[in-house]
């Protein structure tokens, strides 16, 4: 009985402080677009359990971000490697959030392949209510502030950046960045992007302009 619960992945070791510390990191990441932020070791301790079968169904930074941002009222859509029953049950148990089939108006989290149809379906909000735009949380293969072989090099400008900031992102196709650059004309409508990798994360909010890629 309760077999699914018996195999449930762990959450934050200390839910209150884990979520608060991760939220502070996310806040810093949003305020300084493109800068890499490492999550506090204390915050993510519980997400690396010694017991293998208590491991959460997502990597550390992705798991911490989801546990921090979601609650029962968050419209959520899981895609890619996260679009499975294990991840749904885990988020439902720890945050109360339910995965919804429709993509419109959702906070979307995904690991792995970025689906072009999914990007097109994302809600950008309206000029009157730009806050209704989606937040896209994507797990990428690598994140660095230096050029990486095989990674897309981005030069970011905009609010929170003094002149420009460089970031290299591996694991997202060129079409994804073309889509993101095309969205810049829509401001204040748009999608806020959180990139996670390992125990690190970086944010590219909608106000950030991506100037060069290659």
């Amino acid at each position, binding site marked *: 009985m309760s077999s699914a619960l018996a195999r449930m992945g762990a959450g934050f070791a200390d839910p209150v402080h884990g979520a608060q510390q991760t939220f502070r990191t996310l806040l810093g990441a949003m305020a300084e677009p493109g800068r890499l932020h490492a999550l506090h070791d204390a915050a993510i301790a519980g997400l690396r359990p010694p017991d293998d079968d208590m491991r959460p169904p997502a990597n550390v930074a992705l798991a911490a971000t989801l546990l921090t941002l979601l609650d029962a009222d968050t419209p959520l859509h899981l895609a890619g490697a996260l679009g499975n029953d294990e991840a749904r049950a885990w988020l*439902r148990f720890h945050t109360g959030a339910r995965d919804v089939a429709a993509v419109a108006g959702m906070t979307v989290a995904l690991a792995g392949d970025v689906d072009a149809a999914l990007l097109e379906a994302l809600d950008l909000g309206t000029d009157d209510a730009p806050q209704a735009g989606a937040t896209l949380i994507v797990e990428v293969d690598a994140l660095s502030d230096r050029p990486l072989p095989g990674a897309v090099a981005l030069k970011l400008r905009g609010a929170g950046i003094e002149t420009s900031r460089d970031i290299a992102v591996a694991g997202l196709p060129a079409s994804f960045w073309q889509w993101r650059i095309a969205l810049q004309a829509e401001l204040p409508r748009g999608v806020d992007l959180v990139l996670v990798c390992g125990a690190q994360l970086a944010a590219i909010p909608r106000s950030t302009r991506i100037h060069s890629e290659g």
Partner: protein
Amino acid sequence: MTNTAEDTPGRSARQHWLAVLAHAPRELLERHAAALPDQAFARLRAPEIGLTMVRARIGNHGDRFNVGDATVTRCVVRHRGDDGRLAAGVGYVLGRDEARAEWIARLDALLQQPGHHDVLMRDVIAPLEQETAKRRAAEAALTAGSRVSFDTLASEISA
């Protein structure tokens, strides 16, 4: 909460022992829980205090209404048996008592382990149930003294 398919040893049996544990006196529960091995348990959900809305119907029928908020403490632990078998136990208690919720969760997890079930049913659940029954009987006896019977009135109306 995640609802999962319930099978052996049966949903009603588990509801029964959880009800017994939730109503058990604190000091008895503490004594039984103290005897459990500590290292086999992992916390899935550390004890947390929250509110739940208590709803009722007047006279047990009629429209449902909100009686008020009640504090509830809940906890979920996982037990790994010697044979590697996993069981998740949940503890819900009325009020703010984190230790009690965790004791109940641990006992619930162990009660789902076939190796521990019979012993615990005999040594923990049965005595706790008797204790609760005794306490309820004493309360019932106390209130029975002030009971007013309306038998006469009822028979006159029906006659």
